[in-house]
Every structure is written in C-alpha cells, then in structure tokens.
C-alpha cells in the first residue's frame, strides 16, 4: 500500500508540492496571528498569479523537449513593462494602446527567438539567452526616456475582487484552465506534448513540429509580456530589476509542479501547487522573522528535496 502511494506520488509529483504548501499554511496558522486561513490563501494566490502566468509560458517551452527553455522571459517582461507604462503615461486615455504596445514588444521578441532557433539553428537556450540580453539592455538604455506610471483604471481593474479573489488571480486561473484544456483536448495542444516525447514520431504522425515549436515560443513571449505589464501595474511602475527573480522562479514553479524537464509531460495545475508553496514559504518565513537570505536558501532546499523525492533513483 505504501508502495502504491509512493508510486502515485511519483507519477503526480505536484501532489508533493501541494502537500508541502498545505503544511506551510498550517505552520503559518500556528506561528502567526496573520488573520484567517482564507486571507493567507488569498494573499498567496495573488502573488502566485505572477509566477503562474510566466510559469505557463515556461512550461509550454520546456514541454516541447530537451534543451528547450526560455531564458528571455525576464528581458521580455521588463521591456514590455517599460513600453506599456510609457504609452499609458499615467492616464486612462491610452490604456488600450499601452497594453497593445506591451504585447507589441512580446510578439517581435518571440519571433526573434524563432528566427534564431529555426533559421540560424542556434540551440534554444543560447538563442533565448542572447535575445534576453538584448531585450534587457534595450530596456536599460531607454528606461531614462520612460519612467512613466500605469493608468489608474488598469490599477483599479487589477485590484478588483470577485468573492475576495483578485482579478489577476482569476485571470491566471482562466489561463491555466485554458492551457490544461488545450493540452488535453486540442490537436495543437497534443502536438506540443507529442513533440516533447519524440519529435520524429510526432513528425511521422503528421504534426507540424516547426510550426508548433514556433507557436510555443511566441506564446511564451506574449505571456511574459502580460506578466511584465501586470507586475508593473501592480507595483505602480516599471523597474529594471523587477523581473530578476523570474528566470529562476519561472523554471522552479514548472519543475516543482511536476512538469517533466525532459519534455512531453505538462502539468498546468501543478504550477499553482508550486507557486502557492513558494509563496506560503515566504509568508511563513516572514511570520517567524527569518532573514531574506534564509528565504532563498529554504527555496533552494525545497527544490532539491522535491527533485530527490520525485526522481527515479539511479543505482
């Protein structure tokens, strides 16, 4: 029986993250007077939404097979945030234009990655590393021209709540649900997983390998754009270092969520388990007054622990 339980956990690694998230939630209740358990969960989910939005992007990329990873996510986030805030210029008049301008950064950024990977045959990791460098430095070079604030209206929309759940969290939940549905029930979604399992077989089965991976990289850049704009609106403006955490975090939530690093297996719901786990960990460490360094070290230990618990031991 124990063996069966262990095996089912191994095949659903996100269960471990969910259990750990619950454990920290209990610890928060025990150690701190921080309001009701529900409010802790809401706060967690609010911040987790940022990681989930970018995590969806990274998850799709990782799912199309070994070597695929998008290191340009932080760069895309930062530049999109700066451009959209600049166009909004703190007023509601240009809200829609600002959002479109932000996405207007994501789309060419994604296309650029596709050109590097498919036409110049540069390994995806190096291609996105290079394009990430470029995006980051364009943002740095032009940031002095921007420095604008988000439109107040979008700020209000983002802080709007339905039954206590913030709008951004609802948006992220919808994105996750659509992604889960698409992966399971659409030809496009299934082609992502098929390519991740075996590109040659997927090709022979009639899936368009190049088109699918191009779409995935484009989606990744667009989600990064949205994540960057949301983060900038949430913090009242864009900053150059705002996305520094996201290279590591976007990969961490994907892997802790049970998505296979070797590709071919994506677990959208796992993104929530791992993002809430990481947020609950932060809240817990804040509650017991642990310094910032401990928070990072604990995050790293949890990543290694989950990897050890879910990996197949190599004899």
């Amino acid at each position, binding site marked *: 029986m124990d063996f069966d339980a262990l095996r089912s956990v191994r095949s659903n690694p996100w269960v471990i993250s969910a259990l750990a998230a619950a454990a920290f939630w209990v610890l928060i209740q025990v150690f701190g007077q921080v309001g009701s358990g529900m409010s802790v969960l809401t706060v967690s989910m609010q911040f987790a939404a940022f990681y989930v939005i970018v995590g969806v992007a990274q998850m799709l990329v990782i799912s199309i097979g070994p070597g695929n990873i998008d290191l340009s996510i932080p760069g895309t986030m930062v530049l999109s945030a700066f451009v959209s805030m600049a166009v909004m210029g703190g007023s509601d008049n240009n809200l829609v234009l600002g959002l479109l301008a932000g996405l207007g950064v994501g789309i060419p950024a994604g296309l650029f990655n596709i050109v590097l990977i498919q036409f110049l045959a540069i390994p995806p990791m190096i291609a996105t*590393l290079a394009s990430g460098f470029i995006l980051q430095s364009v943002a740095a070079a032009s940031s002095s021209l921007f420095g604008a604030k988000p439109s107040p209206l979008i700020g209000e929309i983002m802080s709007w709540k339905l039954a206590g759940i913030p709008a951004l969290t609802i948006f992220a939940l919808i994105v996750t649900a659509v992604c889960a549905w698409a992966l399971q029930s659409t030809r496009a979604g299934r082609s992502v997983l098929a390519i991740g399992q075996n590109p040659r077989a997927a090709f022979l089965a009639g899936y368009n390998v190049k088109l699918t991976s191009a779409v995935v990289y484009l989606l990744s850049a667009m989600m990064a754009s949205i994540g960057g704009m949301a983060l900038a609106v949430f913090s009242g403006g864009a900053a150059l270092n705002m996305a520094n955490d996201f290279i590591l975090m976007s990969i961490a939530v994907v892997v802790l969520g049970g998505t296979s690093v070797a590709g071919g297996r994506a677990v959208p719901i796992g993104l929530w388990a791992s993002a809430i786990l990481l947020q609950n960990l932060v809240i817990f460490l804040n509650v017991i007054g642990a310094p910032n360094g401990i928070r990072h*070290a604990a995050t790293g230990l949890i990543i290694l622990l989950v990897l050890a618990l879910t990996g197949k031991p190599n004899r």
Partner: protein
Amino acid sequence: MTSGSSLKSALQRHVSLAIPVTGLVVIFAIICIRQPMAASYGGLSLILAYVIPLVFVSMAQMLIMSIGDIDLGIGQFVSLAMCVSAALMDAHPVWGLAALFGLVLVYAALGGLIHLFAMPAIVATLGGAFIWYGTALTIFPTPGGTVPDWLIGFMRWKPPLVPLPIIIAVVLALVMHWLVMRHWLGVLMRGFGGNARAVERAGRSALLIRMAVYGGAGLLACIGGLLLSGLTTTGDANVGSNYTLQSIAAVIIGGGRFAGGVVLPIGTVIGAMIILLTGTLLSFANISPNWQLSFQGAILILVLSVRRLLEKRNGF
C-alpha cells in the same frame, strides 16, 4: 574512431577556435584605435583586471558543460565563496581555507546528488543557486567583511613585463588545456559527455566522474571567488549572479557545444576576455554601458552563425 572522423573533429576544433581568436583581435584592435593607452602595461592591467574571476568561473562552467550538464548556479556559488573568504580569510586564514575546501566538497556532493537521483542538472543547480545566494546573503546582508592585505596585494601585484591578468589567464588556459585535452582524466570526462553509457560499460563509475567534475568546477569557482574578494576588497552576495549566464556565453563563444562533450579550454578563456572587453569597447566608443548586454547577445548570435556557415562550407 576512424582517422576521417578525427580529422573532421580536429578541423571543427580549429574553426571553433579561429572565430573567438579573430573576435578578440578585432575587439582589441578597435579598443587600441580608440585609446592607444589601452595597449600599455598599465592599460592592460586596468581593463583586464576583472577577467581574472571570469576566466575561473567560465572554466568551471566549461567542466560542467563538458559532461552535457549546464550550471545555472555557478555565479551565485562564486558569491558565496567570495563572502566566505571575506568573512574568514583575514582573521582565521586556516578556517577560511577549510571553509572553501568544504564548499568544494559540497559542490562534489551536488554532483553526486544529481547522479544518484537522476536529477536534471539544470534544475538541481538552479536549486543550488538559491541556496548559495541565500547563504551568502545570510553571511553579508549588505557588502562587508575584511579581505587580508596579502590577497589585495596579490591582486594589485605588477609582475615584470606581463600584466597579472594575462599571466593568470594564460597559465589557467594552458593548465586546463593539458588537463582536459591531454590528461586521461580529461579524456574520460569528455568521453562521458559524448557517450555516458559507453564509458559506464567500460567499467567506470558514472557517480565518481560526475562528483569529480562538479568538485573540479567547485574548486575553480572557489578560487574565482577568493580572487574576486581580493579585487573588490569586500564580500558582496549580489556580485556573482551575473557570472552564471556570462560563463555559459564564454564557453559557447569559445567553441563549446551543448551536445557531445565538446569544449575548448583555450577558447573558453578567450570567450571570457571577449565578454569582458565588450564593456571596455563600448565605454571607449562613448556608447552607454547599458548597451553592453545587447552587444554580448549580438556577439553570441554572430559567433554561432559564422561557425555554422564555416562548418557548412567545409562540409561538416
């Protein structure tokens, strides 16, 4: 291996090395045209000072990449080594050295863990990145510590004729070239990167190979961190993070490949110099340092495109 394929790999290696060498010459020539003083002893010492930690980190990354892994935490590990040395080396040098040696063992253990649990290295080292950074931040939440005078003095040492950074870079390149390309350890390591199963079937322990490679990378990163503390004269938890991606870029520019255990120690050192000199080049050309990352990204793309073009023409 047939003589045909060894000839092909030798040619491939020459093409891979010719590109960074050309790149370095071009970049250095432009710097000298803009600022002739750069070619003087003092100029070289100045513009190349920070190449010292970078060559060690890049070499560490190269070892990891030679067995087909990628290390997303090596820069943060350098921060940790730097903070440990700033915390201990002045007051208790023996404890400081012991702690750095302990860090090397920790890195070897990480390699063992990766092997034993069949962890994806890229994620495991990412987990490591959080741990190293967190620990470094716990030691020094803000930059601090004291670095012993002998270490600061060594980093400021002006040896006759050739500036210190060049001596260190050349010695490191030659030692690592001998170790990786000539010594049986290096052959075993690259063979493991090319075909892990074949090396295992030949009776070698994959666990030990991986631990040795990670231990070696940890040692190089620790030396890099120690020397970095001598340059900055403090411990700073944030300073190393940039090295992670820069070291990957240096290895690739220097002729390394993701697949098949193909790495070039001499190329890696040149790659590290190119990465560093991009900043110098921009400042001498009166271009905002904000564009440095763009420049590095463009070089990366250029190098890989040219390499592919040359290889195609030579029929690889």
